């Protein structure tokens, strides 16, 4: 379907669109171990990356994948991998290692639902680090986030994560993937390519930052303090959110990722019924947009957290809401029979009824 100005949209599955976005962003190394619904992204990268001059390796485990991706990242190449929650659990050793080596990497969690919020925002690796995590609500946003994440990873020299899911991976939309231009980045003067060997100033990447005799490193204490300061700076600079109808809201509905599409619809309907309700969505799960939430929730008599898990993001919402006593969870564990995606609770009628029940209207 041709649009105005010669823009051509193609009907693409979310996984293919994300793959195109990664390649447009300059990703040249991709690896993964099949696991639905991440598998489709791996397939798309395997099909397309070689033609773009890159390499895609079908790894023999998620542990192998994250370590291969780390190796590629250490050479300065834009590198990525991913999985679903269980596979990412295996990858945590490498995520921590990337963070403490200050190596950029993009991780795709094509999650089987919403139960990986803690994993995405708290991580499971060792040491003091955080992972920038963006949770798109639909395929176009996933495409934009993918390109942004490659930039953020390089800019802050840190692993970053896209929190997608079955809906993003499998929804087909008409879309055009264009490379986005970001502000210039500093040169990767830390990357290893073997050419400094034998010069007396060989480079070394090591989480303990010990350096070599000719170029001593800062050592773990100083290095890790600096890295902790960097994450504090990221926390101030990179929080992203979306707020709707919050100015006069007395009820605020908070959700993340693809469920936000349902939330916004319900907010529209309830507004039409005369309810002063608004919605808030952390676009970055970490850094959590805490001050924006405090502002959006000021004066609300109810802050309702709709997430399809046993209650994970509710911790962050409670920490930052203007009045923590009005925070209530209205989601819950909800998985469909296949185990691959959200279950019955992801339903407009059910959500509307649940909101009305909780606020007594």
């Amino acid at each position, binding site marked *: 379907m041709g649009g105005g100005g010669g823009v051509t949209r193609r009907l693409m599955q979310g996984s293919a669109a994300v793959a195109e976005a990664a390649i447009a962003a300059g990703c*040249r*190394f991709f*690896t993964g171990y099949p696991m639905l619904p991440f598998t489709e992204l791996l397939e798309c990268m395997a099909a397309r990356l070689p033609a773009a001059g890159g*390499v895609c*390796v079908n*790894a*023999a*485990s998620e*542990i*192998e*994948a994250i*370590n*291969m*991706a*780390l*190796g*590629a*990242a*250490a*050479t300065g*190449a834009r*590198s990525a991998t991913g999985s679903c929650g269980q596979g990412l659990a295996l990858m945590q*050793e*490498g995520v921590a*290692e990337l963070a403490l080596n200050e190596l950029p990497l993009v991780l795709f969690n094509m999650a089987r639902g919403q139960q990986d919020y803690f994993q995405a925002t708290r991580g499971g690796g060792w040491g003091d680090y955080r992972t920038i995590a963006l949770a798109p609500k639909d395929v176009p946003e996933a495409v934009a986030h993918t390109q942004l994440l490659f930039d953020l990873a390089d800019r802050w020299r840190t692993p970053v994560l896209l929190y997608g899911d079955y809906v993003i991976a499998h929804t087909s939309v008409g879309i055009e993937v264009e490379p986005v231009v970001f502000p210039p980045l500093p040169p990767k003067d830390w990357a*290893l*390519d*073997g*050419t*400094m*060997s*034998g*010069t*007396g100033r*060989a*480079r*070394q*990447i*090591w*989480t*303990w930052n*010990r*350096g*070599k*005799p*000719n170029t001593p490193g800062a050592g773990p204490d100083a290095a890790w303090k600096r890295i902790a300061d960097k994450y504090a700076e990221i926390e101030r600079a990179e929080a992203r959110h979306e707020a709707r109808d919050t100015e006069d809201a007395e009820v605020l509905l908070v959700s993340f990722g693809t469920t936000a599409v349902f939330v916004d619809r319900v907010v529209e309907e309830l507004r039409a019924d005369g309810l002063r309700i608004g919605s808030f969505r952390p676009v970055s799960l970490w850094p959590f947009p805490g001050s924006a939430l405090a502002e959006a929730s000021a004066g609300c008599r109810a802050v309702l957290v709709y997430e399809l898990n046993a209650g994970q993001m509710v911790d962050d919402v409670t920490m930052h809401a203007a009045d923590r006593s009005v925070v209530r969870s209205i989601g819950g564990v909800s998985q469909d029979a296949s185990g691959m995606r959200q279950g019955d609770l992801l339903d407009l009628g059910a959500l509307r009824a649940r909101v009305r029940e909780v606020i007594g209207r």
Partner: protein
Amino acid sequence: MTEVTATGPAQVPEGQAVVEFSPRLLQSPEHELCPGCGHPVAWRVVLEVLEELGLANRSLLICGHGCYTQMMKLSDIDSLQCLHGRAPAVATGVKRMLPDTAVLTLQGDGDMVSEGLHEVLHAGARGERVTALLFNNGVFGDTGGHLTATTVLGQRTKTSLEGRDPATHGHPIDVARLLAQLDGTCYVARGAVNTPGTVARTKRMVRRALELQMEGAGFTFVEVLTMCPTGWFVPTPEGPDYLEETMSATFGLGELKAPGGP
């Protein structure tokens, strides 16, 4: 238990500075490893070969966790210290991005055969064009002398106090033999550093492996049996003979696989 005897610093022939003995790719000869440790001898061989083959300024080292990590720190080679056991996976990502660079992995028996057997076997099967080095002393030296997957039968360690008994601790793994069976590997050899003769032979193995890597022939592997008198709980001067009687007796030396036959 045998008492561990300490020796003094290495004796340097009169009029010669230690530095003259050092390969150019070493930024400092001052390491913190035990007297009698075999790792520095084995590593010296590698540095000499890199220099002799003209690979000095296009070589990259991926190093595991063990006493040999010291060698990475002192070497004038672009280096990446990676997670325990994962060097062959990390090297895969590196080499795929830098196909013209000499990529070496350095691991011990604990790192490669205990923690990382999966990674090395798959890298070998994929035929990654890297040179994997195994400094095998049959113990976790770094942690203080514990049982690894290559500890020979009868060897006493802090976690096999009465000696490795197959009924309790199982059998040692000969990873070179496993690798030699894989179609992706093109060169598999095992040397040692307990005598001048074995050192010279090991050097030829490392040279062959690196040459084949640069020819793009496939996965190359050199295991080097190294002394760990501290971890074995034997007096330092007995290390080389002890290696001969125990490790070399279990893991035979020589080329297990080479283009055109070993």
